[in-house]
């Protein structure tokens, strides 16, 4: 039971991660699942569902079709919908039942692509992982398939990678991120994937640097590095830490080397100060607060982001144990049940953890007065 969750929630799942990452790109996402409605993946995990059109579908997998391995219904329904809706691409997403059945999504994707002429691909989720690998794989697949060879590199231009409401939920966050980067003298070439179309993203090879602002963006950064040699920087430009990020971007341009400014913040981990959550944003918040401390990372697909300031934790018990001597904790409010008594708390609601519970108090990380936040917490 030591990896179970009793008194705190678990994170948004991998399937929702795919939906969130691809929501604005004009593709059709088909989740092969028995769910009769889209609520789990969309209305619960997707802040844009009520305000924007989307092309997210559930296949309505029936028990008898699962037992007999009848893939034809999925194929026919997807082809039918696609020929009516003309999506820019079709993404098939796996869920626990077809995963255990061993449904061959690669082959089904090929058949659908042959019948529709629309690029079709599969994201290997299974509903048993968190949103980071789901969203990360989805954006990386877009980078592999749709980004064109650049004719030229554009100086001082930056792609922002890993921007979804799951990590940046406050209204206007994506725009604030763009503004922050542009005020520093860079041109935001694309934003993966809020506010830009698939066509815009297809020009990402022209940017001189990629900035992975969350763990979701890392896989895409690696694909673009491999395909076009574009160096990447990992970090979120928040508060005073922005200057460090911008210096890292300039250094990446000069040297062609990837930059990990969070790894350079070597602080002792015995400070009793902890931030919990997605390691890039939370590490950057700690840096913006100019606090020595440790980021507890309960998420998957973050191995490459772990550094001396980061501690990977699996399950509630491990997180609670790691926090037992904490004096200060920066985290989503729903983590409170595992905080030690007397710890000072800075609440930063995280959509991927508490969903819509704290929408009204969701903070825009790019417009926080971090000095004031420190004073508020009496640090």
């Amino acid at each position, binding site marked *: 039971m030591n990896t179970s969750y009793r008194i705190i929630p678990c994170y948004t799942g991998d399937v929702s991660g795919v939906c969130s990452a691809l929501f604005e790109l004009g593709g059709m996402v088909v989740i092969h699942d028995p769910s009769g409605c889209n609520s789990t993946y969309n209305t619960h995990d997707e802040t844009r569902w009520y305000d924007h059109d989307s092309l997210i579908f559930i296949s309505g997998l029936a028990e008898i079709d699962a037992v007999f391995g009848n893939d034809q219904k999925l194929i026919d329904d997807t082809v039918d919908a696609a020929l009516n809706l003309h999506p820019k691409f079709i993404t098939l997403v796996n869920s626990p039942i077809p995963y255990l059945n*061993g449904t061959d999504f690669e082959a089904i994707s090929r058949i659908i692509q042959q019948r529709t002429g629309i690029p079709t691909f599969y994201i290997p989720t299974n509903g048993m992982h968190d949103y980071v690998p789901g969203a990360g794989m989805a954006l990386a697949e877009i980078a592999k398939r749709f980004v064109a060879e650049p004719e030229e590199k554009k100086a001082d231009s930056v792609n922002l990678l890993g921007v979804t409401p799951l990590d940046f939920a406050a209204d206007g966050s994506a725009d604030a991120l763009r503004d922050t980067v542009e005020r520093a003298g860079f041109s935001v070439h694309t934003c993966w994937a809020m506010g830009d179309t698939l066509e815009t993203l297809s020009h990402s090879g022209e940017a001189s640097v990629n900035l992975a602002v969350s763990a979701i963006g890392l896989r895409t950064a690696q694909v673009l590095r491999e395909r076009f040699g574009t160096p990447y920087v990992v970090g979120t430009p928040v508060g005073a830490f922005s200057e460090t990020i911008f210096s890292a971007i300039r250094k990446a341009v000069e040297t062609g080397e990837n930059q990990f400014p969070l790894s350079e913040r070597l602080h002792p981990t015995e400070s009793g100060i902890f931030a919990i959550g997605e390691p890039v944003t939370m590490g950057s918040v700690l840096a913006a607060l100019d606090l020595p401390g440790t980021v507890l990372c309960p998420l998957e697909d973050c191995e490459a982001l772990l550094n001396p300031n980061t501690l990977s934790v699996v399950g509630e018990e491990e997180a609670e144990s790691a926090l037992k001597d904490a004096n200060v904790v920066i985290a989503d409010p729903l983590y409170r049940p595992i905080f030690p008594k007397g710890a000072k708390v800075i609440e930063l609601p995280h959509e991927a953890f508490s969903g819509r519970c704290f929408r009204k108090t969701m903070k825009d990380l790019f417009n926080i007065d971090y000095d004031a936040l420190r004073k508020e917490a009496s640090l």
Partner: protein
Amino acid sequence: MKKLAFYGKGGIGKSTTVSNLAVAFAERGLKVMQIGCDPKADSTLALRGGAALTSVLDLVRAKQPFTLEDMVRIGYKGIICVEAGGPTPGSGCAGRGIITALDKLRDYGAYDTYQPDIVLYDVLGDVVCGGFSMPMRGGYADEVYILTSGENMAIHAAANIAMALENFKDRGYAKLGGFILNRRNVKNEDAKVQELSEDFHSRVIASLPHSEIVTDAEELGKTVLEAFPVSDMAEAYRKLAAAVLGEDALC
């Protein structure tokens, strides 16, 4: 890299034939990887000279970190032996287990690291579910060979497997390379297997004699090619290897 999958009714002699075939390829200087796709994890026994090999799924089950080398045992003539393994008998899903094991091999870079010239998938019995069709899926075997005798149940199983391949032809799966007759010396054996192959527009690429020497080698825990390298049976396996490589239509 040539990837071949071998199917056929349980007990028809797949593991024995595939292991001897592996040695025949290795004798030609080819680097061979044999992957047992059966929860019993006994495909490569005759190649390992009694050495233990932990199956891929046993490593996964232990929930401890493991490496590619932990999944592999280098056997006779340098043959790279792997056993997929399976869930505890009577529980879980063996087919899903095969998928997980083959995914692990790919994820750990088994094919890139060892770079075998030939990969042999020795697959449990019939294509009973999605998991056991995994070795014939895109990215795995290029060709499927089906072992059968002239016994009706063996022919029935072989026809089922061939039918599965036909059903999946629009999915980019492996092609049917042919049938291998592993004789049981029943009546009209040649004619029955020939008819089967014609029904599927295929061919019988080899006819292996029924020989006690196979059992004798098994008792020694070795392949025929290792235990009795100068024998008619060893020669039959070498001719089968030649046929699979397209050098000889029938042996």
